[in-house]
């Protein structure tokens, strides 16, 4: 019992935004609402109780089963395979230990690994809560509150939105906005990772491929610095934002960047995410570059010239060659009625609306062509 209490205390002691999140999940699973605030107290009761009435026994049985499951979970997070403490695998038994750990951890890890599609490109990410919170890289998210599509391993496509990011650390969060219960992985919150540990990477290398699935790669942690892990799991374009796991299948880092040499693969440790957890949840843009650029108001580019019409709306007089408007399919003589649901009346008014927007922002233009309504949804280019 004591190790259980110990691990639980440790858990409560280090509770931050993330753990609160996780604890809530446990509560929901148990159908009760008192766990987070009451658990230490209840534990105290259990250890001191001499005679319990049947009602209390029932109540405590429920708590114990809950704690047991938590205990196991705590153990999984702490579990370090012996092979990690060998400088190199010494025999077949060591090799099989690595192999079995990867095989066992893989199904759950794979189910939580997603492809993130954004603005014609794609990266990867990993779900860390049953309600669809996803960790990824800042250079995949590119900005806050951007609409993206999350693709699960089975090909299911889900609407999602980027939350906050840390621009100088390459960390970002995405939230699946469709209601559901999603497969997720645990974060290694003990920061138990050590140099030389065996790790495996998952990600949608080169983009989503249903026939193939996400690709797993095995390697070791070969360099540890404050805000970066380096492994020799070879990652490539499309893997960015994907997860790096320890052998227990707990998330330890997110893929960020590579060197020209195959063995140079850099990942952002989950500790960086922990440091900024609440701000990221609140969709804040944190830090300055190089992995994401803060949006600049008024640098959005549409590529249209218009004239106001007496009957209301703006008539398109010219469409710039190769402009976002042309690519979206807008033509001369189309009539623009609404921009992001605001009725259009004058050119100046439309320019004022655009001045408040930035490159990459989504624009919804409701138009009329030959009397028929037509809606265009696309992203502004950069001026």
């Amino acid at each position, binding site marked *: 019992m004591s190790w259980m209490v110990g691990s639980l205390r440790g858990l409560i002691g280090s509770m931050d935004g993330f753990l609160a999140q996780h604890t809530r999940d446990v509560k929901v699973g148990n159908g009760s609402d008192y766990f987070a605030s009451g658990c230490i107290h209840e534990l105290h009761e259990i250890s001191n109780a001499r005679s319990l009435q049947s009602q209390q026994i029932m109540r405590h049985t429920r708590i114990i089963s809950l704690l047991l499951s938590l205990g196991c979970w705590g153990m999984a997070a702490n579990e370090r395979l012996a092979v990690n403490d060998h400088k*190199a695998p010494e025999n077949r038994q060591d090799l099989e230990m690595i192999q079995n750990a990867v095989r066992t951890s893989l199904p759950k890890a794979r189910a939580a690994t997603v492809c993130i599609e954004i603005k014609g490109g794609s990266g990867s990410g990993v779900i860390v809560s049953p309600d669809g919170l996803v960790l990824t890289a800042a250079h995949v998210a590119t900005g806050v509150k951007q609409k993206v599509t999350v693709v699960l391993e089975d090909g299911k496509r889900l609407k999602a939105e980027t939350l906050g990011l840390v621009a100088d650390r390459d960390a970002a969060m995405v939230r699946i906005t469709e209601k559901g219960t999603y497969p997720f992985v645990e974060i290694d919150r003990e920061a138990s990772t050590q140099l030389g540990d065996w790790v495996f990477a998952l990600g949608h290398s080169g983009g989503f491929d249903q*026939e193939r699935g996400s690709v797993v790669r*095995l390697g070791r942690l070969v360099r540890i610095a*404050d805000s970066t892990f380096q492994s020799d799991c070879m*990652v*490539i374009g499309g893997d960015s934002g994907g997860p790096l796991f320890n052998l227990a299948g707990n998330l330890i880092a997110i893929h960020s960047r590579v060197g020209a040499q195959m063995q140079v693969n850099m990942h952002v440790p989950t500790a960086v995410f922990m440091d900024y957890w609440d701000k990221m949840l609140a969709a804040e843009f944190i830090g300055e570059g190089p992995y994401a650029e803060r949006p600049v108001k008024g640098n959005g580019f549409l590529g249209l010239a218009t004239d106001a019409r007496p009957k209301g709306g703006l008539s398109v007089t010219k469409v710039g060659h190769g402009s976002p408007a042309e690519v979206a399919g807008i033509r001369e003589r189309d009539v623009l009625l609404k921009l992001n649901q605001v009725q259009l009346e004058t050119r100046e008014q439309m320019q004022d609306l655009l001045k408040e927007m930035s490159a990459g922002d989504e624009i919804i233009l409701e138009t009329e062509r030959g009397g028929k309504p037509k809606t265009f949804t696309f992203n502004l280019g950069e001026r």
Partner: protein
Amino acid sequence: MNANRIWVIAFAGLIGTVQGQQSLESSYRTTGNAVVAAFEAQRQVLQHSSAVILDGRKETGYGVVISADGYILTKASELPKSGDLAVTVDQTNYHEVKVFAEDLVWDVALLKIDSKDLIPVDYAPTSDVLQGTWVVANGVTSRTTRRLLAGIVSAKSREIPASGGAALGVILKVKSKVPQVEAVQQKSGAEEAGLQKDDVILSVDGKRIEKVTELNDALKDGKVGNLVHLLLRRKGEEVSVDVRLAARAELFTDQMDRNDQMSGDFSTRRSGFPRVLQHDILGSRTVQGGPLLDLDGRCIGMNIARANRSESFAIPVEELKGLAERLMKQAKP
């Protein structure tokens, strides 16, 4: 391999020294000597049942020893063209090497050396193993000793369609409405079949072609390594030829995408395989063709392509056994 999409990845900026960082000695990294030493039993198998394919003294690939009497399978497109082909098995060098049948679909050639007592590979019962399973392959060799690289099975086994679709290897005239050849790409099926500038393609496998789009449709579902029968009009006369299909993106390689740029020395022929077993061994184009072994030292496949930084392909053992039988039959009917 969708070539049309833009992949998101950041290149490392500064990977200089950071204060307080710890670094693992190279010997203990996944490809390091200390780690590789744990696979000595599998290395022994590579020592006697894999062949080093040489162009003079330069290694160009590896081979799978499939019979005691000297038959070896290797990757066809990496065979030396110079005529200075040599083979090393264990520590013996063979300079008399015959190239028998080739299978263009799988890109496999059957070689024969003069020997009676080689140790052929022991085939694994199946390639259908769990992802995460260890596999071992040839790494760059020293003159007498095979070295190895280890990795894991890393994705679902599947077909790898022709990258960019199947193609003949011709550039068509832009202004012509009918498909008329402007230029013939080097090392293509079209070049081998002797296609010439100004040839007009009249039909593909008996199907009449009148427009360029119809030619594209006729080739769309073609498989790499298969032959198509063309009827041509050349200087007023009709000529018929058989042309080997290849992957468009592998014929016209002037544009490397970003992922290719970070993939080092990948295989030229890396798509258009009916089925592959995927693994994550850090290979290169010059270490293909050898056996892929499991921890029991059994041959679970044959390495056929280093596709990119994170993907390596092997012919699964089921197909490999069929291929070996078929090519052996062609060699000694």
